């Protein structure tokens, strides 16, 4: 054996083995899986095409009704956008408060998050629709406790600038957006907090050393980097919000997609096609959102990872 190993290096090249008779690796499992899936897909297509219960013409006709389209545009899309604006804005503010050195701000943020995360959205929306009962005289904007102060000073009248009818505030889409937005803010607060904490503390130090104020450090340096961590779960939250708009029924909101579809369904005694119509609407809207999320992630991911930003040339590895 020793002679063999010693002899090798000298005449290694002539000793090289010839090309092997290579056979591609076989994957029998894949072929079995493909066969099973082809059969299942064929069954599904057959079901979709031949089963009368689908009643496709009715599905598309129901989807095309003006109240349904309005319900989708206002009740689903508009409420999703507005609730997410309230939710993301509120969530970032809550996260910054939660991470602040000020124990009052931090405590308030914690209580808010605790409260709104504890309530199921359906019940929260139901409650929002009934809140008007708390303010029979409306919601006034002015000096707090003005009637007490006026009484104490021996004066009369009021110090109120304008009054909203509470039963109009806590109704319909407005109540829905307030409820969904506050609930979302509680969840977004945790997501934003995780994002802010993911940024290396050295970043804030470097920015402070340049003379930036706390607010500038947050806006210019920390949040743009936190967005990389915040955006993907926010995409999930937006998709979840899109679906949770169907809970607006609890407020109640009548101009909402599923409510409108259901009322058509119950008029014509066709429940199943209505469910299919709603599914198609939500599938389409979610797909669009996922495309948007891809572009947002690409925007906030610049400067990180291997994908070079389009503007810049990849740099050489040398230190010259």
């Amino acid at each position: 054996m020793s002679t063999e190993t010693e002899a090798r290096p000298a005449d290694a090249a002539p000793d090289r083995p010839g090309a092997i008779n290579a056979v591609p690796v076989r994957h029998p499992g894949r072929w079995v899986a493909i066969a099973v899936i082809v059969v299942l897909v064929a069954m599904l297509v057959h079901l979709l095409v031949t089963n009368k219960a689908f009643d496709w013409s009715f599905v598309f006709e129901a989807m095309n009704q003006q109240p349904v389209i309005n319900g989708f545009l206002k009740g689903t899309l508009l409420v999703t956008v507005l609730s997410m604006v309230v939710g993301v804005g509120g969530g970032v503010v809550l996260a910054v408060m939660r991470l602040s050195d000020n124990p009052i701000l931090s405590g308030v943020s914690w209580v808010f998050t605790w409260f709104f995360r504890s309530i199921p959205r359906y019940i929260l929306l139901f409650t929002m629709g009934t809140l008007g009962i708390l303010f029979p005289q409306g919601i006034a904007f002015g000096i707090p406790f003005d009637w007490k102060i006026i009484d104490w000073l021996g004066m009369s009248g009021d110090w109120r600038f304008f009054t909203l009818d509470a039963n109009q505030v806590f109704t319909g889409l407005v109540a829905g957006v307030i409820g969904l937005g506050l609930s979302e803010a509680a969840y977004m607060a945790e997501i934003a907090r995780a994002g802010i904490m993911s940024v290396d503390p050295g970043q804030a130090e470097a920015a402070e050393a340049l003379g930036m104020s706390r607010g500038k450090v947050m806006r210019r340096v920390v949040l743009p980097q936190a967005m990389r961590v915040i955006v993907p779960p926010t995409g999930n939250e937006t998709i979840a919000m899109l679906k949770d708009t169907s809970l607006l029924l609890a407020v109640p909101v009548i101009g909402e997609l599923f409510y409108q579809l259901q009322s058509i369904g119950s008029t014509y005694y066709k429940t199943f096609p209505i469910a299919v119509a709603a599914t198609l609407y939500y599938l389409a809207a979610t797909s669009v959102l996922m495309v948007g999320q891809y572009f947002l992630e690409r925007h906030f991911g610049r400067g990180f990872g291997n994908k070079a930003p389009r503007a810049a040339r990849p740099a050489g590895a040398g230190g010259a």
Partner: protein
Amino acid sequence: MALVEIKSLHKSFGSNHVLRGIDFTVEQGEVVCVIGPSGSGKSTLLRCVNLLETPQEGQVIVRGEDITHPDCHLDEARQQIGMVFQQFNLFPHLSALANCTVAQRTVLKRPAEEADRVARANLERVGLSDKIEAYPAQLSGGQQQRVAIARALSMDPALMLFDEPTSALDPELVGDVLTVMRKLALDGMTMLVVTHEMAFAREVADRVVFMDGGVIVEQGPPAEVIGNPKEERTRTFLRRVLDPTHVEPTP
């Protein structure tokens, strides 16, 4: 008047008393290198000069203003003090140029063209005019540290702090950064440098400060402190640094 004056500075992290009464000054145009074993408090001292660490006791006076005083506008004081970190801490979401302009724009309120001009001039000064559009992740460690120096210089600071600027670099990249720092020193920049580069300290520093155990043990011209140290602790440290394979004789 000294540019920086530090008076009986004390700093503890919990029960760990890191700085135990530091008094020293940096004059305008002076290059001071702080050396010492790890854990001696030299980085903490540097971070106290722009109050990234808040000392428990003592004063830090920059250009006659006590920046440890609660009424001091810290953000304004920090504008005059550039800092370079061991880990660079460049903003990864901004290009090299934007790293150098962001504070000029938001803090000094310079117009875009002026900020851009200053940033380009400083990137050229550190030899990186060809990397202006690059993001930090596309640069080597040595290049990143030079961008960090350009970023600090773009604020036109009166004083530059360097916190072990070459310790996180591959050995072959150290030279580029030290060359930039040497040039800065020759240009008359006031510099306070925490470093392990004895050759650099010996060549460039006007004064070397040796710290150990949270106090200044010895300070003076580099030829004296590094070349002919008086204190035993300094001698022990320098033997270890200059000859890492040296084994202490067991008593």
